[in-house]
């Protein structure tokens, strides 16, 4: 368990660095968020549904969790 964990962590760190390193092709300008500002494009737009799901699967399956925070959005304010 220990080894693969380290590799996965490394992978995540590398991915984060690649993003931060300014992959200029990724992403859009703040005024190009018309679609991303839509409520259905918010990653946490069905928070109550997902919470109910998590509760169901938590009580019926051996694994749980994993989902983090929201983000993206309209780039406003």
């Amino acid at each position, binding site marked *: 368990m220990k080894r693969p964990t380290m590799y996965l962590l490394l992978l995540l760190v590398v*991915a984060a660095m690649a993003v931060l390193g300014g992959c200029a092709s990724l992403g859009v300008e703040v005024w190009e968020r018309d*679609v*991303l500002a839509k409520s259905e494009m918010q*990653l946490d737009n069905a928070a*109550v*549904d997902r919470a109910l799901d998590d509760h169901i699967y938590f009580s019926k399956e051996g*694994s749980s*969790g994993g*989902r*983090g925070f929201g983000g993206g959005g309209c780039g406003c304010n």
Partner: protein
Amino acid sequence: MQLGAHRPIRTAVTAFTATLLGSGTVAASGSGKIDSSLLIYSESGRVKVAEGVLDLSRNLSERRSVGLRLTLDALTGASPNGATPSNHIQTFTGPSGGSSYVVNPGKTPLDDTFSDQRVALDGSLRESLNRITFLTVGGHLSWEHDYSSFGVNSGITREFDRRNTTLGVSAAYTHDIVRPIGGAPDPLTSMPPPSTTGEGEDDGGEAGPGEGKDVFDVVAGVNQILGRNTIARLDYSLSRSSGYLNDPYKILSVVQDQNSAAPGEPSDYVYERRPDTRNKQALFGELRRYIAGSTLDLSYRYFWDDWGITSHTADFFLRLPVRGDHALEPHFRWYRQSEADFYNAYLVGGQAAPNYASADTRLAAFDAVTYGLKYSLPVDAGSRLSVSAEYYKQLGERGPPDAFGVLRQYNLFPGLDVFMVRIGFSHEL
């Protein structure tokens, strides 16, 4: 711009009255949201649950918002107790020790003494430290008659690269107290036979002082806008549980060995025993894309822990617009998990007792699928109603390859068929 002696004030009057009347969407600036949901969950022949959620969020100022969520649920029905089916009538002692229940030959033993209500309260406060940095702190409380939980959490997110990238970390600590009915049984000891139970409490029936469990979670993740229509995220989470991790109501059948008169028939029932720590990790990836009015969401989770369970979860949501502002949302989920190292469908009498053993099917290897369909529609300005139906099914192995005797006759994985209906209502304040 001066016309004659009189100043034109009409523009200003229009603006002032628009503000006064809250016309247009000037007032709909998102001061908060109410989300409510009612779930009816029904396993065929087993547990039924009704669960209601009321979620309120409100912006206190430009920089601060609070959220409060109340969850109520009520559960009734029978649950597999972990024992194997037999050719004979089986009698089990109920959790309180003062009752017993009988299982007919060939049937999966179900404990039908379950009935529980749960109340949970979650609160959170979100504050922007500046335009791109957000701090969240929260708390959690929940009560059941044999289980209570409280927790605190905190997280920070920050946006980068013209707000295309969001990085965040959060941590949570939860302390649970289990007060099993009749006290926490001694692991891997025999279930007291029903015949010995008299009017008073037997030795296992005393309510114990409660067993504790601590959970520490950390999540780190990145959200990335990939294009004008696409957003993705990747989260890594780590969870460490320690303390009382057994399910006090789960037992294992100790069956007679292959050379006995009745191979595979239970000779005893013992309480399960799990390790007292568990380290879980997960990687979760999600991609959401807007395609000509529809929204596609794909996600995948890889989970592994030091109990030997690994799992794969793939979720697929497609939101299809229907005329007006209605939407139809098919959902498909596929899940596969491997069994825990100490999962045993049963123990064999006369063999050396393992350190840990559980016949809880949640720790067995199985596949599961969910099919769902949701329909949502606007009902008023800022309000939406949704109705959804989902079907969830677990499919597992009939039994281990070395099953013998009567154990080969029966499906040792009880399986699960669930039908769920949900009604949701959300309203922007």
